[in-house]
C-alpha cells in the first residue's frame, strides 16, 4: 500500500521534470501552432551554460539561473529571428522541419564544444532530504516543482493581464485578425520564443543538477517526453501541459510498478496514442472548436515538379544497372546498396508523407517489422529468402497500416506525433516481446540474400538485387501515381475536407497508401536483415526515420525520382565527407535548414 504512495510521489516528481519542457513547448504551440523540436536542444544548451557558470565561474544559484535564462532566451530569439521568421509565409511543414534542423545544429555544436563525455553538474542547494512515504525528496525537487508551477502561473497571469499577453492570446486565436488589430505578430513571436527558451534553459540546468549529470544525448529524450506531455495536456494549453506532464509521470511510474522497468516508455507512448485518438485536442482542450479551415496548398509547397525526360531516366537506370561491370570499388557498390535500401524507404515515405500528406516520423518501424518478419520466416520456418522478404513487405503493409489506422483522423502535426509514438512503440515491443524477437539479444545468423537457391554474397549481386528491387518498386509507384489513386491521394493531401465532400474516404485511401508504402519499406527492411545477418531493436531507430524524411524533403514530396535522388545524395554525401567525420551531422543540419529556407519544394519539386 505504501508502495503505491511512493510510486505516486515518484511519478509526480518526474512529471515535474517533464513539465518544465512541456510548458515551453505549449507556449510556442499556442502562438505559432508549431511543435518546436528544438526545445530539447535549448534545454541542452541551458544545461551546459549552467555547467560553465557553476563549475568554471562558480556563480551562486540565483545568478546561475539568471545567466542561463538570459543566454537561453538569446538562443531562442536567434532561432526565432533567423530560423523561423523567414519561414512565416512558407508551407506549414517548413517550420517543423526547421526546428528539427536547428536541433541537429545546436546539439552538435554543444557536442563539439564540450565533447560527448557526460559531465557532472553539482547541485548548488543544500543536501537535505525530507522523508515522504518510503522515499525522500530534496530541495531540488521543490525548486523544480516551484519553477514549474510558478512559471505556469506567471504565464497565466501574464497572458491574461498584460498587454503583450493579450497580444499573444489574440495571435494564438487568430493570427490574421490579430494583425489587422495592429498586433505586431513578430514581436509576439519573439516574446514567446524568448520566454519559452528561457524556461527550456532553466529546466536543462535544474534537471542537470537533479541528476548531477549532463550529456548531449539528453536533448532528444527531453523533446520526446515534453512533446508527449504537451500533447496529452492539449497542445498550446499551458496549464494543460503541466497536468499532462504529471499524468505522464504517473503513468510511467505505475507502468513500472505493474509491469517492470523495461515497459516504462511503452506506457508513455501508448498514453500519447490513446489521447491522440480519443481526444486529439488533448485531455483539457476546450470542449469543441470548429476545425480551422485550411486554405488550399498550405501544407505542401506549391510547385511544378521538374520534369525529367524519359530517355534521361532510362539512361540513368542503364548506367546504374551496368555499374558493377565497370571498374568501381566494392565500397562504392556498398554505398549504393545502402542508397537503394534508403531509397525504398524513401519511396514509401514520399508516398505517405508527400503524396497523401501524412508526415510520418516513425517510418523506421516499418523497416523493423519487415526485417524481423523476413528474418524469422527464413530462420524459423526455412522460407526461401526471396519469399521471406516479400513476406516481410506484406507484414509491414498489414501491420503498419493496422497500427497507424487509428490516427487516420488526425491532421497536420498530430499525424507526425502519432507516427513518432507508434515508431517508438514498435521498437519497445520488439525489445520486450522476447519469445518472438529475442529481445535485446537480437536475431543473429540470418541467412544471406539468396534467389532460387543461389546465395548472393558478392557486393555485385547484392547491388543488383537491391537495385532491381528499388527500380521495380519505383516503377510500380509511378504507375500508382498515374492512376486515379494518385490523384485521389494528392487531393486528400491538398484538402481532405473537399476530398471527403467528393466521396473520397480518408480511411480507405490512407490505408491503401500505407499498404503500398508499408510494402516498400518492409522489403527494404527485409533485404537489410539478410544483408546484416544480425538485427536487434536498435538496428532501425528514430534517426533512420528522420533521415528518410530529410531524403523525401530533399527530393521533393511525393516525387518518386526525387526520393531516389535524395537517397543517393544523403547516403553518398556523408561518405564523401568522411574526412569531416565529427562535423557531418552539423553539416547535415545546416543543409536541412538551407533547404527548408530556400527550396522547400525539394530538388525535383513536389508532385
Amino acid at each position, binding site marked *: 500500500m505504501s508502495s503505491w504512495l511512493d510510486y505516486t510521489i515518484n511519478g509526480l516528481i518526474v512529471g515535474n521534470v517533464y513539465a518544465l519542457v512541456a510548458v515551453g513547448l505549449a507556449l510556442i504551440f499556442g502562438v505559432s501552432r508549431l511543435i518546436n523540436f528544438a526545445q530539447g536542444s535549448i534545454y541542452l544548451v541551458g544545461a551546459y551554460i549552467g555547467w560553465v557558470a557553476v563549475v568554471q565561474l562558480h556563480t551562486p544559484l540565483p545568478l546561475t539561473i539568471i545567466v542561463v535564462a538570459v543566454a537561453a532566451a538569446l538562443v531562442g530569439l536567434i532561432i526565432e529571428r533567423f530560423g523561423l521568421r523567414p519561414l512565416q509565409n512558407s508551407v506549414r511543414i517548413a517550420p517543423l522541419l526547421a526546428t528539427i534542423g536547428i536541433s541537429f545544429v545546436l546539439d552538435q555544436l554543444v557536442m563539439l564544444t564540450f565533447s560527448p563525455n557526460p559531465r557532472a553538474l553539482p547541485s548548488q542547494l543544500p543536501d537535505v532530504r525530507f522523508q515522504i512515504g518510503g522515499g525522500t525528496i530534496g530541495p531540488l525537487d521543490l525548486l523544480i516543482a516551484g519553477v514549474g508551477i510558478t512559471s505556469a502561473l506567471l504565464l497565466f497571469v501574464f497572458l491574461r493581464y498584460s498587454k503583450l499577453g493579450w497580444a499573444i492570446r489574440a495571435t494564438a486565436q487568430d493570427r490574421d485578425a490579430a494583425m489587422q488589430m495592429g498586433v505586431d505578430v513578430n514581436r509576439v513571436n519573439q516574446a514567446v520564443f524568448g520566454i519559452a527558451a528561457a524556461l527550456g534553459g532553466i529546466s536543462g540546468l535544474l534537471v542537470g543538477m537533479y541528476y548531477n549529470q549532463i550529456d548531449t544525448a539528453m536533448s532528444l529524450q527531453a523533446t520526446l517526453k515534453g512533446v508527449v506531455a504537451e500533447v496529452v495536456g492539449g497542445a498550446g494549453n499551458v496549464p494543460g501541459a503541466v497536468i499532462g506532464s504529471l499524468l505522464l509521470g504517473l503513468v510511467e511510474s505505475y507502468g513500472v510498478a505493474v509491469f517492470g522497468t523495461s515497459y516504462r516508455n511503452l506506457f508513455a507512448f501508448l498514453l500519447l496514442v490513446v489521447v491522440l485518438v480519443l481526444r486529439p485536442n488533448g485531455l483539457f482542450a476546450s*470542449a*469543441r472548436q*470548429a476545425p480551422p*479551415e485550411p*486554405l*488550399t*496548398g498550405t501544407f*505542401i509547397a*506549391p*510547385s*511544378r515538379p521538374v520534369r525529367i525526360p524519359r530517355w534521361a531516366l532510362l539512361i540513368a537506370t542503364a548506367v546504374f544497372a551496368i555499374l558493377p561491370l565497370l571498374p568501381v570499388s566494392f565500397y562504392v557498390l556498398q554505398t549504393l546498396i545502402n542508397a537503394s535500401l534508403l531509397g525504398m524507404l524513401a519511396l514509401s515515405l514520399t508516398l505517405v508523407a508527400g503524396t497523401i500528406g501524412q508526415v510520418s516520423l516513425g517510418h523506421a518501424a516499418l523497416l523493423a517489422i519487415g526485417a524481423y518478419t523476413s528474418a524469422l520466416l527464413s530462420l524459423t520456418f526455412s522460407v526461401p529468402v526471396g519469399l521471406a522478404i516479400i513476406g516481410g513487405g506484406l507484414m509491414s503493409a498489414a501491420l503498419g497500416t493496422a497500427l497507424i489506422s487509428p490516427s487516420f483522423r488526425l491532421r497536420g502535426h498530430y499525424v507526425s506525433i502519432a507516427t513518432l509514438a507508434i515508431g517508438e512503440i514498435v521498437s519497445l515491443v520488439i525489445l520486450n516481446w522476447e519469445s518472438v524477437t529475442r529481445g535485446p539479444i537480437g536475431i543473429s545468423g540470418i541467412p544471406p540474400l539468396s534467389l532460387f537457391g543461389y546465395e548472393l554474397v558478392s557486393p555485385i549481386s547484392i547491388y543488383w538485387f537491391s537495385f532491381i528491387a528499388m527500380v521495380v518498386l519505383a516503377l*510500380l509507384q509511378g*504507375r*500508382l501515381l498515374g*492512376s*486515379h*489513386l494518385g*490523384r*485521389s491521394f*494528392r*487531393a486528400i*493531401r*491538398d*484538402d481532405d*475536407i*473537399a*476530398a*471527403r*465532400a*467528393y*466521396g*473520397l*474516404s480518408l480511411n*480507405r485511401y490512407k*490505408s*491503401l497508401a500505407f*499498404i*503500398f508504402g508499408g510494402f516498400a519499406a518492409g522489403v527494404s527492411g527485409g533485404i537489410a536483415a539478410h544483408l546484416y545477418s544480425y538485427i536487434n531493436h536498435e538496428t532501425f531507430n528514430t534517426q533512420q526515420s528522420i533521415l528518410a524524411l530529410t531524403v523525401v524533403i530533399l527530393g521533393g514530396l511525393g516525387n518518386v525520382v526525387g526520393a531516389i535522388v535524395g537517397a543517393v545524395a544523403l547516403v553518398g554525401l556523408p561518405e564523401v565527407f568522411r574526412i569531416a567525420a565529427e562535423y557531418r551531422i552539423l553539416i547535415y543540419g545546416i543543409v536541412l535548414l538551407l533547404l527548408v529556407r530556400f527550396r522547400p519544394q525539394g530538388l525535383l519539386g*513536389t*508532385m
Partner: protein
Amino acid sequence: MGTTMLSLRGLTRRFGGLTAVDAIDLDLAKGELISIIGPNGAGKTTLFNLVTGLDRPDAGTVRFEDQDITGFSPERLAAEGIARTFQLGRVFGNLSVMDNVLIGAHTRLRAVRPAVPVIGPLLELGLALLRPASVKAEEERLREDVKVILARFGERLLPRIDQPAYSLSYANRRRVEIARALALKPRLLLLDEPTAGMNPTETTEMQGLVAELKAEGLTILLIEHKLEMVMRLSDRVIVMDEGKKIAEGPGEQVRGDPKVIEAYLGHGLTTKQESAA
C-alpha cells in the same frame, strides 16, 4: 414543381453558447432553385455543412429524396449525388485542372472500384496498378466528360487544363470548383457564393451558367450575397439571421419584408449586399 428532393426539419447546430443554425425547416423540390441570403454570420455556410455531412446537427433531420440522411458522412452523401462548392474556394492546389475535375467524378468510378466488401480496397489498388482495358476505358470516358464540362466555361479553363490549380486566377478557381461539382453528375447542387470575388462580367457569366444548369433541371441550393443574381435565378428565397429563418418566399416579396431590412440594417451591413463577403 415535382417531388421533394431535400427536406430539413428543425435543423439545429450550437457552438458553445451560440446557436449557429436554429431550427431551420426547408423543402426543396426537384428542379427548384432556392437561394439563402442573410448577413455574414447568419449560419448559411453552417447549414450547408450540416446538409453535406461536414458537420453534425445537434437536433433536427435532413431527408434527401426518400431517406433520412442526418449524420451521414460526406463521402456517402457524395455517393448519393449531393455536390457542393465552398465559400472560400477549395480546389486542390497542386492538382491540374483536369485532375481537380476528375476528383469530382470519383463517385462515378465503377470499373476500378468494384463493390466487393472487405477486399474491395485491395482490388482497387490492384486494378489501379494493373489497369485492365475496362479501367482504362472508364478513365478515358471520364476525361472526355471533363472536357465537355470545362467547355461550358468557354475558353476560361480548357487552355489551362494541365496547369496546377494554384496557378489559376481566383475566378478560375471558383470555376474549377463548379466544374468539379458538375463532374459528380449531382442530383442536388449546393453553391456557396459562387461569384465571390468576381468582377461584374465574370458574375454575369456565372449567373448565365447557373441559369443554364437550372434550365437543365438541376436542383440547386444557392448561397449568394449579390441580390440581383438571387432575384433573377431563384424560385424562392430564404433569409437567415442569427441562425434563424426570418423570411421565405419569392424574391420580390422577401425583398420588401421589413424583418429582412431590419436584419441587414441592424447589422449595419446594407452596403455589403452588393459587394463580396
